[in-house]
């Protein structure tokens, strides 16, 4: 699904990513750990194609195509979807209308999707205007459900979210990663249904709360612009909470 080769990225004059190699397979969920300022968010922003993130070396392949120089909207239309940490308010643009725009040509039942994230009351409000941290998360998930991406990029699903909402958010992220909630139906087994569409995920987490809700296959630590310490996400989390990131320094040197 996603292949990153020797990716170097500069923000202004500063090199933030210093040779990233990563492959995420179809249907696989990858967890990214790392201290603040290590380059995790930069990697997500670069994958999405934001201005200001300059690729100086290396390449990004998505579904076999080199997307390194592709504009953001083409990446989105190819199936990359991203949840924003601090999205801007757009005055006069109702949440309802943006959700419809996210779906492009597909028909979506906005009310029904909004019910899933308990967001019906916000549909007629301007997008992100005065939304709390948890409301932003639910709004982002609602847009992503309409967009229905094949690769989900999610920066800290738990930040600014209370415990009650965490359960809701975890459930919806799981559903998005499973290709929008396949339920068993006559004539097709669960296995066959899962074969139909496989969604991949790249998720940044500090607390690891999200791991209680999703099946994460692999994880790595980003440290000073490089990836290290591949392992099972739970093992990595346990190690970091015990020893911090000291081992990464040893590992990278």
């Amino acid at each position, binding site marked *: 699904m996603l292949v990153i080769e020797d990716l170097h990225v500069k923000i202004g004059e500063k090199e933030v990513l210093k040779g990233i190699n990563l492959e995420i397979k179809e249907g696989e969920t990858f967890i990214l750990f790392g201290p603040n300022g290590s380059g995790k968010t930069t990697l997500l922003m670069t994958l*999405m194609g934001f201005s200001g993130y300059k690729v100086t070396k290396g390449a990004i392949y998505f579904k076999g195509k080199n997307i390194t120089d592709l504009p*953001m909207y083409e990446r*989105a239309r190819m199936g990359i979807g991203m949840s924003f940490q601090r999205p*801007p308010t*757009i*005055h*006069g643009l109702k949440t309802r209308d943006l959700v419809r*725009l996210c779906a492009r040509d597909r028909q979506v039942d906005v009310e029904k999707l909004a019910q899933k994230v308990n967001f019906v009351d916000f549909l007629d409000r301007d997008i992100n205007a005065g939304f709390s941290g948890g409301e932003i998360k639910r709004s982002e998930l609602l847009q992503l459900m309409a967009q229905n991406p094949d690769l989900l990029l999610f920066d800290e699903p738990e930040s600014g979210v209370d415990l009650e909402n965490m359960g809701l958010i975890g459930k919806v992220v799981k559903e998005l990663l499973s290709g929008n909630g396949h339920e068993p139906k006559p004539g097709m087994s669960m296995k066959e249904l899962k074969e139909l569409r496989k969604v991949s995920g790249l998720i940044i987490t500090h607390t690891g709360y999200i791991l209680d809700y999703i099946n994460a296959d692999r994880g790595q630590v980003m440290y000073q612009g490089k990836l290290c310490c591949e392992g099972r996400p739970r093992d990595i989390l346990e190690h970091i909470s015990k020893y911090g990131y000291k081992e990464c320094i040893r590992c990278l040197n």
Partner: protein
Amino acid sequence: MSQLDKEKVKLEEYVFSGGEKIELQDLREIDVEDQEELELAGVDVKEEERSGTYLHLNHTKAVCRSKQEGVEILDIKDALDKYDGLPEYFWKAVDKDKDEYTRKAAEVVHGGYFIRTKKGAKIKEPVQSCLFIKGEKIGQSVHNIIVVEEDSEVHIITGCATSHKVQSALHLGISEFYVKKGGKLTFTMVHNWSEKVEVRPRTVGIVEEGGVFQSNYILLKPVKSVQSFPTIYLNGKGSIARFNSILVAHPGSYINSGNKIVLNAPDTRGEIISRAITTGGELIAPGVIEANSVPAKGHLECKGLILSDGIIHAIPELKGTKEGVELSHEAAVGKIAQEEIEYLMARGLDEDEATSTIVRGFLNVDIMGLPKKLKESIDKIISETEKDMF
């Protein structure tokens, strides 16, 4: 060219007499292309959801009728005859000697509407008036008076348009509004002039105790020049005034459109909100709130977007003359934030789609609380205007 030169109109170039007189039974008697122009000014030519209609064509009234008891609609000349010259209202709010345009309008009056509600009457459907110009070098001078009697309510929609055949014209309009105790006037004006039309309205309103005045002004189409500065005096305790404007300056347009609210009594509130876009024209947006009594609150908000080389000059002004007044303003002139464009691009919208979505939001008229049908036609005008924007 200096600002003064741009605002100066050569009155002698326009013809103020001799326009053909046309009486119409129905707005649908107007030719179809001109009906479309009227519709683009928010006029409902079928008059379906309207309490009454006044149409002024060039130099005379063409249609004038009220469909509802509780609201009187007359041509100003008939009203002056009927009510002995309207001594309480005629030239009582606007100063006849203010400038050369008021003097000209005092010298020649072609018509205009006199709309008065009955005491306590709540007029449900809006009254519509249209000031229409058709011909060449026409100078149109109208004088409008609205009287909202005690505890009554009315919404007046004024559509100003020119025939598709018009080459050049001048519109002078004196408007005097009187909102009596506990009355409510909503005044929505949609301008659909054309590239060679000059517009010089002079508007003053006086609001008594507990009265509410709300103005909605929508100028999306090209115009040669507009200079207007409607002023509202809140003279009664607890009265409220609000101005909402949506303005677009196309290449070649010169627009100087502002508002003034004077808070002259305790517990008064004033709000001026304007959204301005230039796609190449020059747009000056002055706003003044003056408070001479306490407690009094005023807020002024002006947001400007420069989409291509043009000028937006926002001039917010606050004046307080008593201890305890609360006045504030916020003004911003700039471009569309890259962050907003990228947010929408990450959802699959290309740059043009993202820009147009943001501009539509910026021009959103929800705040005006317009009737559904009018809002739909404004939305239609916005999408049509948008085609020429980028």
